[in-house]
Structure formats: C-alpha cells, structure tokens
C-alpha cells in the first residue's frame, strides 16, 4: 500500500508574462520502506516536484494548478502552513544538495539538532505547535522558506528568553544518540562546533541526523551527494540505505546520476520536461529500458575503455516548457520518432507489471 500518492500534479511558475509548466500531470506513488529515485537532467522539474511534496515551494511565483498529494489519507495540498507543521519534520523530512546552506552558520550544531528534536518533544516553552503561538500572517498555503527549519529558528528566536535553557542542553542525550546513529565520530565534541568547522560529508550527516531525528516516514533527498567527493558520497549513500532499513523510512531520491540510482534505488522514475516518461523497478530499467530518452541516457554513461564504444549523446536541447504542446515532448530529439509523435501526446501506460512508459512505440 502507498505511503504517499501523487495524482495529476501540475505546477507552473509565473514569470512576468510567461508561464513555465514545470510539472505536468504527474502521477507517482511511494510505498513504505522503499527507495524511489526520480532521475532527470537539469530543467526537468524534479526539484520542483520535491519541494511541492514537502510544501516548500515559493508561491508566488510557483503555483500548483492541479492535483493531489495524499499522504496517510491527508491531501497535503489542502493544508495551510500551520497545519503542514504537523507533517514537516515529523512525518516528511528533506535534505538538500548544499549542506552548507541548509545549516545556520551562527548556531552550533547541537543547538540546531536540538531545535529539530524540540518540534515533537516540545520541552521548551517556545513551542510553535501549541496554542500559545499566534500568527498574524496571512493564511498562505506553502512556506516561503527554503530552509527546512528556517521558519522554526526565526520564530523560536522571537520567544527566546534569557533564562531559558538552550536546545542543546535540553536534549543533550538525544542529540548525541542521533549523531551516533549517523556515525559521526566523537559526537559529544561535534555538538559544540559551528557548521563552517565541519567538512561537507560531516555536514550532510548532520542534515540527515536532523531530518531523521523524528523518525519520519518519508525522507526526500534532493541531490544529497552531488557536492561531495566520491568516497564521501559512497559513505553517505550507504548510511542512507542503512538508516532506511533501521528506522523504516521511505526515501525519495532526486538525482541526475543514473549510476547512483542503480546502486541504491528499488524503483526508478525518469523525468523529462516536467513529466514522468518511464517508471519501473531498477532492474527492469537497466535490462529493458523502453523509452528512447532512457535508452539514450543510458548510452551517455561513460563505460569501458578508450575506443571501445562511442557515446552518441542527445542532439538538440531540453524543451522550454512555455507552452504545453499537443505532441510528445521528446519528438524533436528522438532517434525513433514517428509521424504520430508530433500529432498528440502519448499516454503513460503500464506495459508490464511495474513498468510504465509514455511512448507511442508501445501503444
């Protein structure tokens, strides 16, 4: 059964007079305890998709024009920001590409992790979820803040009184436990460091620690290892997969790297031009890629030695998404294009159990 089910999701960005159709009628579901990868090149809309699930899209300029995101029987798109606070961090968490920008440089690590723990535990008096919190802000649906915990830090700072205990003192035990969970060496020492004193890999571990501190059911990871070294990347990916099994979290992994998906994903979705064009188990995708874009993409991965094969690349460039045209988005670049590809859009159909593709070759 599904943990989260996205149906018919459409998101546009209003930029001046133009609309960019970043996500178009997207259907996706994630089950319990599985690692789903969404793979695509730049401009395909995968980050927009990720932000919309956790309600961190900046609206405006983004606007969700259609669709539902059903999580445990709640449509997340119907929640306003206050209601979403019951989900963000506790049920659904997210980590981003640049751990450096996700951590507040002015606060020690212990303080930031402690704040994450405080949301649920609410041992401090600056609780945001209690009735004491009043907002004069307009009822806007989606947070304007990219920082997962940015809202919380700024609000809790307003209520900070000088004799209140700091988060790192209140939750000392839990913080050290979480840091041990993400295998940070010397956790009791790291607690007192500032973000700039840590390496990229350590910071990403801290981010994972904060994200998983409340044992959420879904972790969204948006290119979590792109800025890290290869050896660090391997450690982080391994950590994520181990924690997934230990805690029972599902992971939605957003990446441009098919090889990373091959290493850790259970299922994979290929995204192009705001739409999903192929979905299957990870094994099926690599043994039987159906969509010509997927096939070309696999061909573009360098493998073998010099002179053994020639990579063809993909001619042309990604669609601009200003207009939704009634044709297959990949038609202009496809090596197997047929006349009907420019006349209407292919449906996204199940070709076999667990394998869907949107291509006229299979209709």
């Amino acid at each position, binding site marked *: 059964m599904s943990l989260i089910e996205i149906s018919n999701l459409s998101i546009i960005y209003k930029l001046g007079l133009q609309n960019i159709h970043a996500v178009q009628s997207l259907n996706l579901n994630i089950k319990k305890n599985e690692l789903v990868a969404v793979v695509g*090149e730049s401009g395909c809309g995968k980050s927009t998709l990720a932000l919309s699930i956790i309600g961190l899209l900046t609206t405006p300029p983004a606007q969700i024009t259609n669709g539902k995101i059903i999580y445990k029987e709640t449509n997340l798109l119907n929640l306003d920001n206050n209601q979403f606070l019951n989900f963000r961090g506790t049920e659904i968490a997210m980590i981003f590409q640049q751990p450096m920008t996700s951590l507040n440089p002015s606060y020690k690590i212990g303080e930031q992790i402690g704040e994450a723990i405080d949301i649920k535990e609410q041992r401090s008096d600056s609780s945001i979820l209690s009735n004491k919190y009043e907002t004069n802000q307009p009822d806007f649906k989606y947070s304007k803040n990219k920082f997962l915990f940015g809202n919380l830090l700024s609000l809790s700072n307003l209520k900070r009184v000088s004799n209140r205990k700091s988060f790192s003192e209140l939750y000392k035990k839990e913080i050290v436990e979480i840091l041990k969970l993400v295998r940070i060496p010397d956790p009791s020492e790291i607690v007192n460091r500032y973000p700039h004193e840590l*390496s990229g890999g350590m910071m990403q571990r801290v981010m994972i620690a904060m994200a998983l501190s409340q044992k959420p059911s879904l972790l969204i990871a948006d290119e979590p290892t792109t800025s890290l*070294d*290869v050896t660090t990347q391997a450690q982080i990916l391994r950590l994520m997969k181990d924690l997934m099994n230990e805690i029972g979290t599902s992971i939605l992994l957003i990446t441009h790297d098919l090889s990373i998906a091959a290493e850790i994903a259970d299922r994979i979705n290929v995204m192009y031009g705001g739409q999903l064009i192929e979905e299957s188990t990870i094994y099926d995708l690599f043994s039987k890629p159906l969509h010509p874009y997927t096939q070309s993409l696999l061909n573009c991965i360098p493998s073998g030695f*010099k002179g053994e094969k020639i990579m063809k690349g993909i001619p042309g460039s990604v669609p601009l998404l200003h207009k939704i045209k009634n044709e297959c988005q990949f038609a202009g670049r496809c090596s197997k294009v047929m006349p009907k590809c420019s006349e209407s859009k292919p449906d996204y159909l199940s070709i076999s159990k667990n394998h869907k593709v949107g291509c006229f070759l299979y209709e």
Partner: protein
Amino acid sequence: MSKTLLELINIVKHFPIKNNFYIPYISTSKTFIQAVDDVTLNISEGETLAVVGESGCGKTTIARIIMKFLKPTKGIIKFNNMDVSKIKGKNLKELRSNIQMVFQDPDSSLDPRIKIINSVKEPISELTNFSKSEIKQKVISSLKSVGLNDEFLYRYPNQLSGGQKQRVSIARAISLQPKLIILDEPTSALDVSVQAQILELLIDLQKKFNLSYIFITHNIAVAQYIADKIVVMYSGKIVEIGNVNQVMTHPRHPYTIALISSTPKPNPWKRKILKTEIIGEVPSAINPPSGCRFNNRCLYVEDICYSKIPKMIETDKNHLIACHFPEKTLNITKNLD
C-alpha cells in the same frame, strides 16, 4: 614511440599562511598549505593523461603550475626537453601558444561582455602575427571543428547553452593548434547527455589535430573512458600511476581501490558501493599526517606508515604506486562494469 612532450619533475607547491598581522607579505610562519608535494609525471605526444583525485588532492594546482599561473616552490618543468621553469617574455609567449587550458565552469570561462568571435580570437591575436582576416578565418574554422557554425560568431555568451559555451572554450583552446591542452573537469558542470557529446568531441579533435590532453577529473569512469594513462592523486601526492588498463583492472594502491569501489556503476546487479569500507575523510592540507597521508583510512596500515613517507615502487612495467606494502593488494582485481 612518441616523444615526451611535457615533464614535471619533483614539483612541490606550498602556500605559506600569513601569520604576521602587522607586516603583510612578510611571512615568518612555518605553516604551509602543502598543496602539491613531490609530483613527477610526464606526457607524450598524442596521449591523454587523466589526473584523478578528490577535493584537496592538488590536481588543479598542478594544472595552474603547468599553465604558469603559479610558480612551483621547488621542481622543474620541461617542455619538449627544454627547461621552461623560469622562462619569460617571448619564450613564455611561445610556450603559451603550445599549451592551452579549458576550465570547468562554462559560465565564467567566457567574458560575458565580449562577443564569441573576440573571445576565441584572443589567443591568436596575442600570440601570433596573423592579419585580421586570417584571424577571422581561423576563428571560423575553430568553431566549425567544435560543431558551431558562423551564426555563433557575433553572439554573446548569455545567448548560449552550457554545452555550447564549453564548445567555445574548446574552440578557443584549439585555435592556435597547441600541442597540449589541459582540461580541468571540463564536463563536471554539464548534463550527462551534453557531457557525452563533449567527450566524444574531445576524442575526435585529438585524432584530428594530434593533441595531447591532461584531463583532470574526480570521476574515474570518465577517466577510464578517455585516458591512455592515469595518475591518481591524494592529498597533494601521487599515489598511483600507470596505463589505464593497469590502473583500472589491477589497481594496487589502497586509495585507488577505494576510489574505484566507491564510484557508482550503472549496474544494479553488481552493487558495490554499499559494501564500501572506506572510512574517514581527506586530511587537512595544512597539517598533513606524517608518513603516508592515507594512513588514517587505509585498510592495510602498519606502524611504518605513520612515520615514513612511502616511495614510488614499480609493481608492473611503468605501473607505480606509493606504498610500503604493495604485496598486500596483489590479488585484487577491480572492474568498473
């Protein structure tokens, strides 16, 4: 047997850390950033040498030393068997017409206020004496070689895509028909499909113009795809060097083995990186550990590794590693497929 084009001999580069607040630029400090330590390598005509390593390994510093943007603290550079470590003036200009560079970030590689034709012609007009019309012809032919037609001549960089900008950078580099091109992560900032095109283009151009490449990358799969010879660097030192077959199928240095195991492969049936045993992180360049710099992460570490710096030992013909115990990795075979 093609002749040796470029040689780096015992190159060392230390950046002193200013510690004297009151008198800048007179540093009495004993702390240095040891960016590059005792690097020796060479490249022949028509060859591609891949320099592979993670952040802080010194690969970009090596590139800047070869391009003479930096002076090495110690060591000799030889080009065509001539010592070019200290050349200036006209000789330096001649060297520059033989060695060019392509950078990682396509956005900052081209002056945003200058038309493409003027960016590409800059090296030609500075380093040669051709007439204006000859230069224009050369620019057109360079752009054609990288697959860009005349309409790109008078455009500005912001009108081009990332892949197109990188092609322009390559056109600029080959416009003088140099002998050697240094490519510093030329495809890391590009989409996978664009990367494939650029790599193929580079291979094509190498055949066409008999170019030598020093290809710097952190991605060992790309290195394997494009290189004849591979140098693996770690924390400012060379840890392994050999031809691409040797290094990729029979890596002998524990770091190279870890690097290959950690690289994700497009093969879900042969998942390796989850079993990776690499621990720890790259050491700080300011206070590198004594002895072998990999000692805090190596699976085969022994006492001597903490005190004595390993020398380069030849394990096969022209395949060397910097390790005290090369026999420990004798039976490991790796495969990136």
